[in-house]
């Protein structure tokens, strides 16, 4: 019985999910997503003026969304195809009677699921650590934690799909991905003006702006930035995922991999 695209993707995904649990790269990505929680705990312990709400929005915005989400996604996204090429194991997958696109989808989905679980843990721990802060305010509300979780999950899905496609298209995907993350996502998204909307980060922040409460107004420039409407931001992110998947699958169906012996 020949496997179709979705049957093969499902089979690869189920195998890949169990392998991810043994992967140092996957745990490193999880570590990156838990890092803001650790920082929050250290800051809360060291500074008695910082408030739970202030700490969670500040670290959620800058550390989780701005740094951890792009870098953790880069780490796992690039590995979706490029790791198999580096390890020279892609031969076994390419020479089986399955659509090549199934390799991309079958390895992308487990990576995203892993990162979603890590995001959920990272956000929950960040909020819990921020709640230990001794400054007085109303505490961390649902209007802080849920938008943060939503944006983090949307972020890892979008970035991971983008970097997975990058891994199919270019030879040194990690270097190109790092350059993209720092120059476009890290730099451009923090410049004032309309160019921000060229970045994924801007649309993730728009998700927070569209669903969050007043606690987010504390972030510098939050109130003065022209955020995308919620639906538009979600649509742009979904389109990025779709285009990345189609472009990656298209290229994978045609690409040759020159593997050294």
């Amino acid at each position: 019985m020949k496997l179709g695209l979705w049957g093969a993707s499902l089979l690869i995904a189920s195998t890949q999910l169990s392998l991810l649990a043994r992967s140092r790269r996957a745990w490193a990505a999880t570590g990156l997503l838990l890092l803001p929680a650790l920082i929050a705990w250290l800051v809360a312990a060291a500074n008695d003026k910082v408030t739970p709400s202030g700490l969670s929005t500040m670290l959620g915005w800058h550390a989780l969304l701005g740094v951890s989400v792009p870098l953790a996604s880069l780490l796992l996204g690039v590995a979706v195809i490029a790791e198999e090429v580096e390890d020279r194991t892609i031969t076994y997958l390419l020479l089986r009677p399955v659509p090549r696109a199934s390799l991309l989808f079958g390895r992308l989905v487990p990576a995203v699921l892993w990162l979603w679980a890590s995001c959920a843990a990272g956000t929950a721990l960040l909020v819990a650590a921020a709640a230990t802060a001794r400054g007085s305010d109303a505490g961390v509300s649902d209007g802080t934690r849920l938008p943060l979780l939503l944006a983090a999950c949307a972020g890892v899905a979008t970035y991971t799909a983008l970097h997975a496609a990058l891994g199919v298209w270019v030879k040194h995907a990690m270097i190109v991905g790092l350059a993209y993350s720092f120059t476009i996502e890290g730099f451009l998204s923090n410049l004032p003006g309309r160019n921000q909307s060229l970045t994924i980060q801007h649309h993730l922040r728009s998700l927070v702006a569209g669903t969050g409460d007043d606690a987010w107004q504390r972030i510098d420039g939050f109130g003065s930035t022209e955020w995308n409407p919620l639906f538009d931001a979600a649509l742009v992110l979904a389109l990025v995922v779709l285009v990345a998947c189609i472009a990656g699958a298209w290229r994978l169906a045609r690409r040759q991999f020159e593997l050294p012996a």
Partner: protein
Amino acid sequence: MTQAESSAHVVRAKDLARFYGDVVGVCDLSVDIPRGTVGLLGPNGAGKSTFLKLLAGELQPSRGSIEVLGAPPFANPAVHARLGFCPQQDALWDDMTAVEFVEFLLRLSGRESLAARSAALAALERVQLVDAKDRRLGGFSKGMRQRVRIAQAIAHEPELVVLDEPLTGLDPLARHATLELFRQLAAEGASVLFSTHVLHEVEALTQDVVLLHKGRLLARGKIAAIRALLDRHPRRYSIRARDSRRLARELVGLEGVESVQLKAEGLLVVATRRPEILLESLPGIASAARAGIASFESRDEGLEAVFDYLMGGAP
């Protein structure tokens, strides 16, 4: 090309070329490989691995065409369902166990879960790894890893098994068992195409060879037939005799003999363009000279000699 011609050959390459930038992998390679067991030979850099990767569909030709089992192999699931490929690179998913690895690839080949498990165990049994089936591949020795790669190539019972240097890393016992496995596969009706630079291993398995050199086809056919084509080279024979000096004197004047070399310990190496005269005359000459022949053997029937000749040297 008729259907009968097509089905008689598992591989048909026409003007096949593959370049890596300025580096030639294979060039202008036109060769038809028949069903059965065929050895692909050549020194390092001859283009063997490139040819096998083109054949397996891992690479696309830069120029020309290649058909495997009647169709182009690149990204072609119909070909991959009928092809088993054992790559040269020592790469495996080290976190998987041996049986997980083979079973997973079998399932990608379309086997149901239970059938895949039993076929995986059968393949591991054939490469004598069934006792290590639940061990992680990361802990396997080089030889065991090689055998797992062979197991995944044969587990789905392909029509054509392509193996790139399959005997590398195997100890003598495992080599013997693996060669025996290839014989069994051939007996079961599979075509086996394998590359190696260990020449005597080819001879132990098949007389049918394809010789590559610097990315080009040097020769293709039976070892003996290739040798017969090389009649511009004299045939060389080793003769060990009790009185080799006297025998050498007698042989120098024989028709067709080009040279007689006297080596250590009574060994003569005779080069002749008329081997039939030498073979016919030698018993009489040896008897008359009372030379006492202890052994007589051709130095040119082996693949190594053929290869050396074709490369422009002499054995």
